[in-house]
């Protein structure tokens, strides 16, 4: 792994750790300005209604209140990642409990809360669309009567309550059924779950006298927020500066505007800086959680276990606004195919409107849901055919050079190694070690999202290096990884590098912390910048060293030639005096992945770039009387391409599994009649130290062609397989097959509809 490299591949401590362990690191939730006001959002209490009267006059009269705004006070703009359907404040129709209707800013939080209580809103209820079945029923009420007028990504297939239908068609599934000896059909459901970051969404906005606004926020995508704010504020993006001081976890929930627009609008109205921060209740009712789903999966196999065809439909309950639904529905089709050779495919993902909070992207969006269906069914098939589940997978998994479902050519396919090593580590030969105990497997594949990244790299006259990147560190240590790549290339130590990040004015563009792309893309941008710096350094040093540039190398913080060496510090000092400084710009964008365009329709994400492959294995026991699940061992084998920093790669796996187990066993946002019943952390049950087992991480390396040193994205994959791995192990342990998430003790004991009357 790391033998040939000095910095990359080593488990070095992350650069931002000291600030974090001493409490001196500042997060957006900590950020404050003198004279700052506190903003709060007034939200709908109806799931679907006409807002017939809104009276904010009493609120505005409360002592300490400095601004009250509603739809009439803001430009009539709709925003959204795929469909521009979302207003800042509901102008006439409210579409979910929690939808913003107005906002206030006051000198104290107490005064702001008093102002909210003084706002009067009168609603005329409309028939709510409460779930997928209701939304898709013939003649269903429309969540958006005016859906056709919305601006949307042109290729989306929209129709009424469906805000996208993405489809992959390969071959002919009818032929596949005919060739099959057995055809299996199953239905799966998964619940809405929240990312559970421990830092609420927060933003502070301040306008200056030139009409420019600065917004400090914990967003994962500062440039995307900048663009959205430009639409909402009706000013040029260059007048908007988004700065990310620090992020306390994101997992996709902090991609899009959450509170930044309220802060900016209130600050403009009040003439003072405004801070807005969400509460736990707002997070669990009005954020960007993972969509609940219904999945229908039909798979044909020969009697010796070869897949002949798969037909799948996954419906995403994406809530009142499209959000990330259309894109997630697209990605889902690739997960439904799985990393398997299947000649005939008909796979569809539907993003559907309902009167619930609009959902977004959560770590591997669509991954755990679709994978739960695919991998559970594989085990059901194995069982029915009398084939070992490991063997069934080995007979069908993709190999080097195979085609993916949309025709992309797969390379660096580490899947077989992952599967065999995970199975071995869990002791697969002994699948049922005792009564009530069983082992389960699940495999999958995932993408490394593209998008461009730019960096500036500057060598300081003291020999330290400044890495200036528009990327955001959300906790994964991706920027430490990128700095390791830079240090490797420049011949310096990791601790020589200081990182400045996440400022739309002062740092170059970055597509953002999404899709497991940051270390990958920023690392490659660093390599480009380092190459440019090397050119400049050698050009400057050559004469002084009396050597040709081709004979020079970077080593030990020096340019070294056959006749001597000069320190980088000295070269930087010279350049600062006479040449403007030793600085370079590096950029990177991943090359597109070729695929067959004829196979896809309505598809926003038609190929997995630099794909990773993974296998999870779990050994657990089930208490047959109480349904309690005890995990004895959990193993992950993940093809990471190249582990830039093994400790933090393991950290992604350990954390991703913990989060995945939460989704599997205990977490769900429960709606009844359009209202969330458990909008607090008492009843939204995230795993504690006592609920998470140790995870054994096996880092498999099949280096990809694109990533730095062959690295692939590592952050999202570990979230994908836990539900299926656990469901399969439970089935092995007690013979109970649960096809609905979360797999609660109640479902295990009483059956999957539980016991509710």
């Amino acid at each position, binding site marked *: 792994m790391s033998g040939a490299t000095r910095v990359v591949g080593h488990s070095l401590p992350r650069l931002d750790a000291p600030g974090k362990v001493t409490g001196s690191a500042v997060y957006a939730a900590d950020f404050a300005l003198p004279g700052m006001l506190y903003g709060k959002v007034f939200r709908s209490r109806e799931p679907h209604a006409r807002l017939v009267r809104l009276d904010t006059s009493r609120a505005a009269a409360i002592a300490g209140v400095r601004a009250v705004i509603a739809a009439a006070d803001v430009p009539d703009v709709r925003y959204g990642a795929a469909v521009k359907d979302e207003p800042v404040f509901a102008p006439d129709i409210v579409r979910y409990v929690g939808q913003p209707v107005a906002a206030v800013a006051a000198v104290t939080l107490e005064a702001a809360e008093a102002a909210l209580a003084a706002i009067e809103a009168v609603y005329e209820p409309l028939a709510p669309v409460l779930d997928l079945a209701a939304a898709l029923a013939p003649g269903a009420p429309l969540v958006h009567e005016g859906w056709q007028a919305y601006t949307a990504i042109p290729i989306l297939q929209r129709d009424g309550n469906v805000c996208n239908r993405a489809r992959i068609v390969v071959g002919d599934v009818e032929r596949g059924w005919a060739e099959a000896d057995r055809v299996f059909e199953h239905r799966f459901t998964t619940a809405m779950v929240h990312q559970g970051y421990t830092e609420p969404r927060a933003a502070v906005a301040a306008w200056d006298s030139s009409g420019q606004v600065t917004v400090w926020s914990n967003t994962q995508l500062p440039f995307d927020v900048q663009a959205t704010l430009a639409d909402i504020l009706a000013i040029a993006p260059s007048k908007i500066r988004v700065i990310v001081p620090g992020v306390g976890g994101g997992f996709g929930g902090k991609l899009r505007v959450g509170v930044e627009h309220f802060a900016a609008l209130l600050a403009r109205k009040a003439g003072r800086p405004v801070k807005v921060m969400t509460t736990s209740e707002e997070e669990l009712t009005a954020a960007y959680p993972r969509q609940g789903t219904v999945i229908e999966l039909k798979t044909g196999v020969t009697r010796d276990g070869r897949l002949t065809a798969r037909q799948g439909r996954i419906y995403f309950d994406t809530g009142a606004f499209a959000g990330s639904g259309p894109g997630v529905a697209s990605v889902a089709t690739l997960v439904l195919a799985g990393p398997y050779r299947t000649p005939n495919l008909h796979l569809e993902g539907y993003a559907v409107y309902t009167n619930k909070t609009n959902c977004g992207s959560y770590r591997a969006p669509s991954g755990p849901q679709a994978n739960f269906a695919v991998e559970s069914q594989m085990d059901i098939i194995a069982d029915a055919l009398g084939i070992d589940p490991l063997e069934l997978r080995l007979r069908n998994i993709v190999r080097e050079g195979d085609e993916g479902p949309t025709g992309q050519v797969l390379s660096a396919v580490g899947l077989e190694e992952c599967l065999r090593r995970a199975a071995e580590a869990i002791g697969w030969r002994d699948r049922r070690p005792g009564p009530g105990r069983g082992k389960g497997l699940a495999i999958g594949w995932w993408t490394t999202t593209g998008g461009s990244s730019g960096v500036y790299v500057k060598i300081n006259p003291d020999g330290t290096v400044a890495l200036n990147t528009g990327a955001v560190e959300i906790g994964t240590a991706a920027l430490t990884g990128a700095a390791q790549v830079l240090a490797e290339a420049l011949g310096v130590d990791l601790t020589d590098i200081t990182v400045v990040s996440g400022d739309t004015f002062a740092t170059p563009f970055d597509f953002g912390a999404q899709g497991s792309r940051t270390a990958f893309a920023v690392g490659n941008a660093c390599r480009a910048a380092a190459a440019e710096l090397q050119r400049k350094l050698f050009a400057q040093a050559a004469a002084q060293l009396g050597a040709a540039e081709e004979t020079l190398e970077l080593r030990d913080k020096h340019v070294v030639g056959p006749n001597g060496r000069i320190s980088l510090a000295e070269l930087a000092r010279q350049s600062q005096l006479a040449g403007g400084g030793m600085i370079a710009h590096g950029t990177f964008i991943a090359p597109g992945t070729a695929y067959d365009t004829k196979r896809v329709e309505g598809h926003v994400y038609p190929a997995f770039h630099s794909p990773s492959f993974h296998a999870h294995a779990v050994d657990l026991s089930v208490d047959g009387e109480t349904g309690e699940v005890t995990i004895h061992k959990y193993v992950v084998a993940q093809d990471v391409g190249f582990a830039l920093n093994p400790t933090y790669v393991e950290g992604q796996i350990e954390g991703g599994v913990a989060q995945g187990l939460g989704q599997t066993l205990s977490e769900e946002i429960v709606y009844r009649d359009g209202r969330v019943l458990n909008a607090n952390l*008492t009843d939204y049950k995230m795993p504690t130290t006592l609920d998470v087992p140790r995870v054994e991480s096996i880092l498999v390396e099949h280096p990809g062609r694109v990533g730095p040193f062959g690295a692939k994205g590592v952050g999202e994959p570990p979230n994908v397989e836990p539900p299926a791995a656990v469901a399969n192990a439970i089935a092995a342990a007690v013979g109970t097959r649960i096809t609905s998430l979360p797999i609660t*003790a109640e479902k295990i004991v009483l059956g999957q509809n539980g016991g509710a*009357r």
Partner: protein
Amino acid sequence: MSRFEYHQPESLRDAVALAGRFGAEASFLAGGTDLIVQIERGRVAPRHVIGLHRVPGLAGIAANGRIILGARVTHRAIEQAPALAGALRCLIEGAEVIGGHQVRNVATVGGNLVNASPAADLAPCLLALDGVVALVGPGGERELPVERFLLGPNRTARRPDELLNRVSLPGLPARTASAFLKAGRRRAMEISVVCVAARLTLDASLERCLEARVALGAVAPTAVRAHEAERALEGQPVGGEAFRRAAEAARAACRPIDDVRASAAFREHLVGVLVRRALDRCVERARQAT
């Protein structure tokens, strides 16, 4: 502007006098882990909060035959009390599963009782141990068995001008053991889906049950004793048939609801399982202790 006026009496008499003066407009503050949450969420709005931190004599544990727990005894103090480690062990087991260390370090037995959540973990333990509360008011002190103190969800027999100042547990006969079990959706930080406390006193042969207490939490408007289950045990040989009948009787005694944590049907099922297991554990412990 503060939501309430704060008072810091320095004697029991002053604390009671303040309660007498403000009545239903006042709440006592001990650990605050229930009261402050409820104030923040707007579920209660006392105009006066009477902090008990400076009132002496409320935080001790006395053991001489009886056990006396001052109202301000924390869950942590219960966990660490040697006097509770024997036959009364179910109380430690009930105390150590609420919240995390942060909550248990400040949350008190008095506050837990007065808050009277139907799912409170200490309440079934106190019922199983024949706990008696002492209430001090302007007219003096009165005592009440815990079973008569808990009246409904967040409702007790405490009058607004009374302070709960201690809980007493009578001495237990030889060959007595207790156990507490809980079910929830995760292993910590959990409001019980169901909890059960049991206490058995065995005869000299350790084969027959002389006295039994079975108490259930989170399956009725208050923690409740399952009297029928206790009658099914007293005088019977331990284990097997008697425990099965007791578990059945306990199931019949509960009136659980469907809520976001579990269905009534699952709660009933769990009562049956946990009662049987708690009784088995009592027998194990009684036998080990001798």
